[in-house]
């Protein structure tokens, strides 16, 4: 299992069907097959509503790649929990609209976006 420079966070959006289940399954499979370290949470919305301290820890822990939904929603969900995401160090892939392959490639730096401008994932 390998560690990435940026921490990887996967949101399962457990309480709603807004993220296609097949995309979630493919992204989870892709992460497991790549044998990388990652964190997976049932539902970022629910954590934000509880003001979960883990969101503050994730926001403060350096570069972060997030597979969830719209970057604007993710940014302000973290903010609602008192966790300000550092804009330059965070990128978000939107599993509601992006194909699983693009999400995986981005999370694993296979899309050539490790350095500068994001190709698939969006900077905040």
């Amino acid at each position, binding site marked *: *299992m*390998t*560690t990435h420079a940026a*921490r990887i966070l996967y949101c*399962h*959006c*457990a*309480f*709603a069907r*807004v993220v296609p289940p097949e995309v*979630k*399954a493919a992204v*989870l*499979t892709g*992460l*497991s*097959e790549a*044998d*990388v*370290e*990652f*964190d*997976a*949470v*049932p*539902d970022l*919305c*629910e954590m*934000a*509503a509880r003001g979960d*301290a*883990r969101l503050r*820890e*994730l926001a403060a*822990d350096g570069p972060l790649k997030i597979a969830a*939904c*719209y*970057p*604007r*929603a*993710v940014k*302000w*969900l973290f*903010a*609602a929990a008192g966790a300000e995401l550092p804009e330059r160090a965070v990128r978000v892939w939107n599993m*509601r609209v992006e194909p699983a392959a693009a999400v995986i490639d981005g999370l694993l730096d296979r899309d050539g976006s490790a350095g500068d401008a994001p190709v698939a994932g969006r900077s905040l």
Partner: protein
Amino acid sequence: MNSADRATLTRLLLERGLEVSCRQDAAAPPGHDPSLAASVLVANFGGVRPPAPASGVRIVDSEGIDPASLAVAIEREADQSSGGAPAAWKPWFPVIDYSRCTNCMQCLSFCLFEVYGVSAESKIQVQHQSNCKTDCPACSRVCPEVAIMFPKYRHGPINGEEVKADDVRREAMKVDISALLGGDVYALLRDRSVKAKSRFSKERDDERALKERQSCLIALQRDLDVPAEVLAALPSPEEILAKVEAARVRALAASETASLDTKD
């Protein structure tokens, strides 16, 4: 454990409301805050139980266990550490995009369920998330700046999609909310003139306002996608008027404090 089983196990645990950290070194907790360390450690110990780690972390040996049985065992251990499973509340609540919000307090005035409040600095806040009526996005439509999101909503920009100029025009006040609330709340908030105040009090007593409110409820359901059960659960007209009055006072006080702060 092979990657397919690991993916299945992760999904099963997430569906049970458990957070999962996949780590190379099982003993190394993610992050730096020890209070956020994992409560259950799962690894293939080959049937040889390792010594219990510090701080009450429970151990599950995955040796020879299929993902479904493993998920059950992990859930049991996690329940013992945390004292029970989390409530199955669908996290449906407004999320404010403060880069757009102008602190106008219209959402505070509009919401009948006290979801909104103000901070000590008179800044609008979502304070009682669980009061929010599931699947009702109505307050996001009231916001003139399209600053309120419901991330689990079907359509943009309420779901968090980027806001376009057209959205701002389209989403702006689809129904006459002031009639719904039984008075010209927004004019009152905007100019706070004596004239506006007397108009508000007259209209509140007017039966016509109540009729308009009823027709607005129908418009709300149609245009703002308010679920029928939310409308059915609305308090009585008297209770609504009392809540509106309380919200109006709160909103006025907050916006007056905010404008004083700005002047300072």
